[in-house]
């Protein structure tokens, strides 16, 4: 058999090409092409079904940016944003504890990371039964003799967004935890030894060694939290369908597109969200570059 001979250099090039072409074409086909189409739709009054649509220019963008009905839902994102800080706090605490010597450390790591592996829809249903009238939470509260504290966790508008944001915290803490743990473990152990010799307490080590070494990572997590809270979707969509004041911007977009058949307008909303998220990311990049 005659083999085609390639020089090592061209072989390397061929492998690189073959390995890149599939992910790149998928990326182009499923991310960039839809994005361009979405931008195109956002300039029309397309209803999502009809083969033709009228060009309306930037009218859709004007509607979204001037009508408070479309923009006011970003208020809901505030709940998720504030929840991000709890999430980061809890994750940081556990990451620090588990970076010291702890019994069954890997087991605890698994326990903390597990919720992140679950599907968002499954989590939505778990917590739907958890919060439901007479559900798990109510049962636990009455077992503890706290019947007076029982409320309609999802029905009461003063509290339902907090319930939903708490679900998001439960889900994403593991992710933040893992990032923190990795960052903390990359700190040179000799620094801790030196600190031990100097007589530093655990708290001192946390404050003067861990926090400064992972400052960038904390910042990154906050940024991820911002873009995450802006695009919060699956948990509220599954649990309340966006009713009773729990609609987020993405839910609003879905409703506009598929319930009122205003695909053009909804595409404009999608593009606006994209611009906001990109802006937040750029700010993050710039801020991190300054520190270098």
């Amino acid at each position, binding site marked *: 058999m005659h083999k085609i001979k390639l020089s090592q250099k061209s072989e390397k090039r061929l492998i690189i090409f073959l390995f890149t072409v599939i*992910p790149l074409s998928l990326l182009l086909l499923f991310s960039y092409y839809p994005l361009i189409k979405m931008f195109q739709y956002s300039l029309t009054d397309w209803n999502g079904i009809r083969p033709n649509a009228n060009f309306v220019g930037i009218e859709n963008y004007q509607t979204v940016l001037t009508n408070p009905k479309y923009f006011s839902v970003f208020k809901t994102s505030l709940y998720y944003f504030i929840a991000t800080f709890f999430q980061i706090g809890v994750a940081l605490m556990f990451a620090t504890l588990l970076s010291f010597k702890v019994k069954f450390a890997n087991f605890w790591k698994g326990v903390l990371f597990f919720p992140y592996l679950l599907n968002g829809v499954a989590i939505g249903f778990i917590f739907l039964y958890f919060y439901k009238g007479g559900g798990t939470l109510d049962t636990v509260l009455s077992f503890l003799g706290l019947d007076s504290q029982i409320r309609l966790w999802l*029905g*009461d508008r003063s509290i339902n967004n907090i319930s939903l944001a708490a679900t998001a915290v439960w889900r994403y803490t593991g992710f933040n935890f893992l990032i923190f743990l990795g960052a903390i473990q990359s700190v040179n152990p000799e620094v801790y030894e030196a600190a031990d010799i100097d007589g530093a307490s655990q708290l001192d080590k946390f404050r003067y060694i861990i926090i400064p070494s992972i400052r960038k990572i904390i910042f990154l997590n906050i940024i991820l939290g911002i873009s995450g809270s802006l695009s919060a979707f699956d948990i509220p969509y599954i649990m309340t369908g966006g009713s009773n004041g729990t609609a987020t911007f993405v839910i609003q977009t879905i409703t506009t597109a598929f319930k009122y058949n205003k695909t053009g307008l909804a595409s404009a909303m999608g593009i606006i969200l994209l611009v906001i998220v990109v802006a937040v990311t750029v700010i993050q990049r710039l801020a991190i570059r300054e520190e270098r």
Partner: protein
Amino acid sequence: MKRKSIFSKVGLTSLAIVSILTLAACGGKESDSKASGDKEGNETITFINHKTDWESNGKWDEYITEFNKDYPNIKVEIETIPDYAGQIKTRMNTEQYGDLLMIPGDIVPKDFELFFEPLGETKELEKTYMGLNDRSFEGVQYGIPTQMNATGMVVNMQVFKDAGINEFPKTPEDFIVALETIKKETPDVTPLYTNYAAGWTLSNWDFLRTGVSGDPDVAIKLAQDTAPFEKGDTMYTIYDTLYQVANKNLIEADPTTTDWEQSKVDMANGKIGVMVLGSWAIPQIQEIVPENTENITFQTFPAIAKDGKQYMGIAGDYNLAINKNSKHKESSRTFLDWLINESDYAIENGGLSAVIGGEYPTALQASQEAGVVLLEENQAPEGKESLFPEVNNMSELGIGSTDLEKQRIIDAGKGNTDEKFEDIMKEFNIRWAEAIETVGNN
């Protein structure tokens, strides 16, 4: 920033895997609408529909076997979609949406011709079928309803009798009083269950409009009225009743977590008094507790129209239509006609056959004997067929198409928001008037 790039790569790989799976899945479906008539004249048609329960319990297979006795040359492949209304619209962006399908509810009439094969002149078909009003454009018919449904209230009369009420009320005021009595006499019973969370159930309140007004032109009048939510108007009466039941705590304690499947069980067991639904729901509820079948009745909304009579609106269910791009239009038509004219589809689904002269289901016979007139909405006049759906979408009030604004009324009634009912109605009037103006300008 190394970590981030690792995560994005993981993301990309999983995306790649997912996409490959999706592609593979798409590939499998490709053969569906390809011409496949062989030498002996056998043809295969694909019928896409929403009856997933019939696919799993074998009903569709029985139907096809029955059909093939008369028409052995037409093979029917059934494809059911659980989220039919949502997914079929996406598929209609291609040419492959089966040969026979159900027309999704929110296609505006002027677009029918782009997707569906004309079935004939509406005037001709009207002699044979009911419920042709909303799937016709410029005198041409594009769909025929699989069955006719009445919209009203599914009522467990035993619940009313236990509270000392022997006759179903006839006015909204008496209705509220009756529900209050139920609440007082039997505190464990939910007088009216809204099914707030299901996402489609509250739309039934909007379909009550035909019965409440007793006016077959109610929808087209609505689409031309710049203030249809004034006190005394049909829609006001309906929404006001919804607000009152929520406000007086006559509904479920936590509407946000309602459960449709459970609600049917509770209704059958006398834990719920009333649910606003279509008559198709009756058999589904009755079969849960067969001993209680007699208790489950179907009533019209308690209102008396201007002429002093009580009406109950009936309208077509999903309409069968033929894909314009189909290569088997004749065979599809044969199956369509068989399904509507000869099969028991309508009766088995708790409805009335669309063929004029069919027998009324038992659930409706009771109301009919009580003097309630069954009323079908008229077709919108030529040139105005698309007006109501367009104004409705533009205003985003979602009359008969979404639940959001009805949920808002319940939220206000429950005291979850500070909104006053009158203010909501004022806002509805403004939005509706603006939508009429915008649609008129296009």
